């Protein structure tokens, strides 16, 4: 069977790792919740709760914050164990610009790489050239220019940066409103202004033009960074994102299995307040959280990325 598969892919009619299958996997994740997990047991709880994918990590962002020091790609052994424990897609994070960590993650067979500001950046000027890889990448952004630069580098999916590990949704809201608001502005802009707009926000002209024509980003756009309750998840969906990443918000709460299921249901039924009220009942303690506005600039993760 293994040989047959290779033969099939070499017959010239069949292509792997093209832009359609990379962006397409993100399209299949829409309307869903991607959960940070640090053990195979967590991964099983996430899958059981209805997660569409898990992010395999050694520490959730709240612990990365508390721990300090340099945060790197997770141990490949842990990532393999998590891959073996679930049937849903497994994502993992590499440092910004660390293309060798990305090569290792691709070799492990992860389904999606998050080139993430939550880890300590490895390059202070450049991101990974994501076109070089057969598996898709997701990258964070705070505004439309940043989103389009990442898509230009080959990102197949975008997420807001928010402020990871805080349990404070305010930065995710700010970043989602910024991206979606800029797209609305772009739609009203006469075509002769697009080149200057592209120059000023540092985005590739062709992608600015495409975004204007589509009225949305050319790739799927999730929220991330501070989502801790079903109401937070539904808020981001009503603002207009395609789905949610939840990091520390689930496994730093009192009852992760219950909260995970509630956030999944709130992401699907984001427009139904009766259902939102029901799933928000009796979830136990949410993660404690830190107000994002109380963080000194040196502790803000969202400022990482260029």
């Amino acid at each position: 069977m293994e040989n047959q598969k290779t033969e099939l892919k070499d017959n010239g009619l069949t292509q792997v790792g093209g832009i359609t299958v990379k962006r397409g996997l993100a399209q299949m994740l829409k309307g869903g919740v991607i959960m940070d997990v640090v053990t195979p047991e967590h991964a099983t709880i996430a899958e059981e709760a209805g997660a569409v994918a898990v992010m395999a990590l050694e520490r959730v962002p709240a612990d990365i914050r508390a721990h300090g020091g340099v945060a790197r790609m997770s141990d490949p052994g842990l990532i393999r164990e998590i891959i073996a424990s679930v049937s849903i897609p497994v994502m993992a994070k590499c440092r910004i610009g660390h293309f060798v960590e990305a090569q290792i993650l691709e070799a492990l067979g992860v389904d999606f790489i998050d080139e993430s500001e939550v880890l300590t950046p490895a390059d202070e000027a450049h991101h990974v050239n994501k076109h070089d890889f057969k598996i898709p990448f997701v990258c964070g952004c705070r505004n439309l220019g940043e989103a389009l630069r990442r898509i230009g580098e080959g990102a197949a999916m975008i997420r807001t940066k928010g402020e990871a590990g805080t349990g404070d949704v305010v930065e995710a809201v700010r970043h989602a409103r910024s991206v979606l608001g800029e797209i609305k502005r772009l739609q009203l802009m006469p075509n002769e202004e697009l080149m200057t707009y592209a120059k000023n926000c540092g985005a590739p002209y062709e992608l600015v033009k495409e975004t204007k024509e589509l009225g949305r980003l050319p790739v799927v756009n999730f929220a991330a960074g501070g989502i801790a309750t079903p109401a937070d998840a539904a808020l981001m969906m009503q603002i207009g994102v395609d789905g949610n990443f939840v990091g520390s918000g689930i496994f730093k709460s009192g009852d992760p299995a219950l909260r995970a299921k509630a956030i999944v249901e709130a992401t699907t039924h984001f427009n139904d307040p009766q259902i939102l009220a029901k799933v928000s009942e009796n979830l136990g303690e949410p993660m404690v959280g830190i107000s994002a506005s109380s963080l000194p600039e040196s502790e803000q993760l969202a400022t990482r990325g260029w």
Partner: protein
Amino acid sequence: MKTLRIGVLSLQGAFREHIQILRRLGAEASEVRLPQQLHGLTGLIIPGGESTTIGKLAVTYGLMDPLREFAAAHPVWGTCAGLIFLAKETDSLQPLLGVMDIFAKRNAFGRQVDSFETDLFVPVLENGTAEPFHAVFIRSPYIAAVRGNAGVIAKLSDGTAVAVREGKWLATAFHPELTSDLRFHRYFLQMSRDD
């Protein structure tokens, strides 16, 4: 001409893409998240997404029996995760509607790095033109066994079954909603018109 009102199961996944194509083809299209939203529909599409997520949400929100009853009387098309959900059997423990007499093997080609695009020859679409259908497979299942009245309508060049029709039901392992070739959607609308 009969008005076609097609629901798209919108618990999770690529429902927006199907709805856009259905509207372009002149059908009415609506999102289905709760049982009462099936009323008045003439057909249903179950989109790609994560089949475990879709199955769990369908169980929690009381959709399993209403979907089975709907399928007994109307045309239904499942793409990728939708194919798995429609199947009587699959290789993992998860909620299934058990409508179509097929065995769906999940993630049958491997992980995302093995996801692929290829040209398929689909005689039911071609009207003698022999124009291939460009098919996108993403962590896709295939149909490992076809029983009863289910018949294979598309295969890979190695013979693997990737699309099947059984009476008023259609299932494709790939994603016609991700390409600009609308022939599979037209084919399903024709099935709905003939129903």
